[in-house]
């Protein structure tokens, strides 16, 4: 056969004898090898969206199914984690958010707003370093509680930037918003988080008396 001279077609001669690896099988193997190690990450992310373990598991399962269907279109070498999070975010918005029926905190997104709000709460330098220490001493449950009580868009932006370490551009793609919106969500989210954590630290008596400040 003339074709066998072409080195790129090596192995084609075995056609019909079923020695070749099924391409679909190969895809499944590759998918498994690359996606399974990310399950914990996806689950932790899903918990920030669905906020209960059962829904989070369902969300990850749905994400995996959607991702498998689209895996052929995923470009190897690009950020698989970001790609999966985009699928998960879409799945969440399209099905879970509707199902949950929780009143969503609305979040207006104009960039100017946070610039106007910027730190009116500056206190003296001496107090601050004690504050860093107090924040460090908060129990994990307080941090989780604070994160789950800020608006969803803020929470996800903070999660993507601070936990996943995605670039703003990637977050914009994942959330389907302009980069400016990502920035404003991050600013507001982090400011709110900070305020909550400071409140918790005060309630727990971790912050030394705020007598003389500002």
């Amino acid at each position, binding site marked *: 056969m003339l074709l066998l001279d072409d080195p790129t077609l090596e192995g084609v001669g075995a056609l019909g004898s079923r020695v070749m690896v099924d391409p679909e099988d190969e895809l499944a193997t590759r998918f498994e090898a690359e996606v399974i190690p990310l399950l914990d990450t996806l*689950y932790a992310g899903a918990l920030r969206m669905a906020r209960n373990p059962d829904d989070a598991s369902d969300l990850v399962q749905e994400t*995996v199914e959607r991702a498998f269907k689209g895996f052929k279109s995923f470009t190897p070498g690009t950020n698989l984690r970001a790609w999966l999070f985009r699928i998960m975010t879409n799945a969440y918005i399209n099905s879970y958010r509707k199902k949950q029926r929780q009143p969503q905190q609305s979040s207006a997104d104009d960039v100017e707003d946070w610039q106007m709000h*910027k730190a009116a709460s500056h206190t003296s330098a001496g107090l601050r370093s004690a*504050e860093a220490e107090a924040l460090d001493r908060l129990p994990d449950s307080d941090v989780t509680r604070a994160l789950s009580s800020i608006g969803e868009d803020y929470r996800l932006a903070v999660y993507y930037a601070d936990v996943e370490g995605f670039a703003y551009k990637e977050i914009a793609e994942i959330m389907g918003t302009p980069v400016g919106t990502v920035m404003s969500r991050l600013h507001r989210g982090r400011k709110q988080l900070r305020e909550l954590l400071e409140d918790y630290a005060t309630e727990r008596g971790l912050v030394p008396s705020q007598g003389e400040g500002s």
Partner: protein
Amino acid sequence: MNTGGCADPHGCEDTDQHLYEYQHHELTPDLHRRIEEHLATCAHCRELYAEEEVIRQRVKECACERAPEQLRAQVFAFIATFRTTRG
């Protein structure tokens, strides 16, 4: 705002406004350097930044849940169906 008597209040303003972008390495090299320089000279902003670093670190640490075994098994089972259907 109270800048703690900093000699460069404009730098404090810049830093306050761009602190998160600085933290996430999203600024132009120029602006990044400017903020870095400001932080080196301004104790007030440095402490503010230290706090934001603590917050980021805490948020990062608290998100370490592991996928339940049942979910893991479901995912394996799902992938397996694509292997056997085309055997």
